[in-house]
């Protein structure tokens, strides 16, 4: 199994202040990697650094053999990296179908029709809303659309920043099932999550960040059983 994404000794933040320090992790091909930790631990910052939306003070990020540290954000989609930010992740005045279309501009999929059908079957809710402006969708539908847009270019690596944030329990289940479906199509997934327990259940690899630094890493099952992790993150709170 090859390493698709490799973060080494990364120190990054905003406005001259580092939020994460010396963070290191590797992501294997076709795996689901999960990043969890308390609020303010720097999980989102880590993800944003991969797509070059933060100031990087030290360390490197490699996508396969390509060094993408601090690259131009819009250059990443053609490389095969698609990200879904936590908020403001759809274009509100564009219709659902236009949103999906945008996903194909920077890196057209090999067979556009086939890809679109595949994604609409993953998100059947969107099928009858194609001409609706994305701003009118519910939170859960918006999340689906955001992920759908990212998948339209057949990416190799999918980055999700708290995909279940603010969603109803029904959608929560859907999203986690979805992630496994997406992995089945051969896409590598890196996910930042607040719902630690559920995230760990589907994770091949999990990384815990505390105060901007690596705390512990391991398979999902191993961390579920880990005492320190159970006490801090799994104590009933979901």
């Amino acid at each position, binding site marked *: 199994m090859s390493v698709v994404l490799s973060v080494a000794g990364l120190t990054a933040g905003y406005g001259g202040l580092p939020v994460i320090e010396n963070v290191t992790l590797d992501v294997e091909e076709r795996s689901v990697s999960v990043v969890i930790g308390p609020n303010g631990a720097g999980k989102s910052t880590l993800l944003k650094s991969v797509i070059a939306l933060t100031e990087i003070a030290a360390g490197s990020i490699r996508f396969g053999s390509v060094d993408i540290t601090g690259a131009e954000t819009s250059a990443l989609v053609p490389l095969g990296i698609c990200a879904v930010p936590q908020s403001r992740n759809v274009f509100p005045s564009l219709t659902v179908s236009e949103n999906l279309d945008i996903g194909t*501009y920077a890196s057209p999929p090999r067979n556009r029709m086939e890809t679109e059908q595949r994604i609409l079957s993953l998100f059947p809710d969107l099928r009858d809303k194609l001409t609706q402006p994305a701003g009118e969708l519910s939170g859960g539908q918006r999340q689906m659309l955001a992920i759908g847009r990212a998948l339209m270019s057949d990416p190799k690596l999918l980055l999700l920043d708290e995909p279940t944030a603010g969603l109803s329990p029904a959608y929560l289940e859907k999203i986690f099932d979805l992630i496994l479906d997406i992995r089945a199509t051969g896409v590598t997934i890196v996910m930042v999550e607040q719902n630690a327990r559920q995230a760990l259940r589907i994770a091949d690899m999990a990384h815990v960040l505390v105060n901007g630094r690596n705390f512990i890493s391991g398979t999902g099952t191993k961390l579920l059983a880990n005492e320190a992790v159970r006490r801090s993150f799994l104590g009933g709170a979901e």
Partner: protein
Amino acid sequence: MIEFINLYFIPALTLGSIYALGAVGISMIFGILRFAHFAHGDVMTVGAYGVLTAVWFIPLHPLLLMPFGAALAVAAALTVDRFFYKPLRKLPTIYTVISSFGVALIFRSLLQIFWGAGNEVYIRGITKPLVLFDTFRIAALHAEAILLTLLIAVALHYFLTRSRTGRAMRAVADEPELAAVAGLDTEKVIRATWIIGASLAAVAGVFAGMDTDVHPNLGWNLLLPMFAAAILGGIGKPMGAIAGGYIIGLAEELSTFNWIGDDALVSPSYKTAVGFVIMVALLIFRPQGLFRGRLL
């Protein structure tokens, strides 16, 4: 009634057409580049002078020579973006606003240096108005302006909703950071914005020049009502800007009609203030405009 249509309503629609075309550019630039482009009026003037010069060399109707004006205006816009606006892009947008203020003066000075400060006309002599149904007298200019603007509006709508560049432009206007994350080429979108905005401004400039005279302050004098129109339509909503332009044009011209009694409702000397008053009302009560544009 006929008099109302001939002397007030049709000229109002003409003025509205000019405002509409200029406001579209302002709204787009506001929406995508996120700053108030104070030099947009002068881009109109550049376009007007481009066509004027072409008319001097090629004896055709100004409207046929429109591409020359558009080309000059687009070249001017892309040049100032490259050398003056782009270096300031990462800073708070107010710096670009200040820069555009300076660019306005630069454009005007260049026009005054090369073409002189006097008034010029496209066509000498008086042209006969069109007479429709034996009652409506419409100057050819009015008919041309209104029809061409409506055509452009339809074309613009199709461009924005059907073409890739159009959709990319709407996406960048909606969420610029997401657009970058989605891989859209922002610089290409910015270029397209300038090309469309400047071309439309050139058309507006030619109509304005045909309506009055071509002189260096042509566009600058129209800037305020065009800003009002852009805000009225909702920032970042080009079709809204077109509607806004017509509303402001109508308000301005029709305000001098004697709605009540014999005197004009608003004295003609204050006609140009009508747009400003509407803008103030908008800023107080509904800054997002009619079509709910962005508030920046």
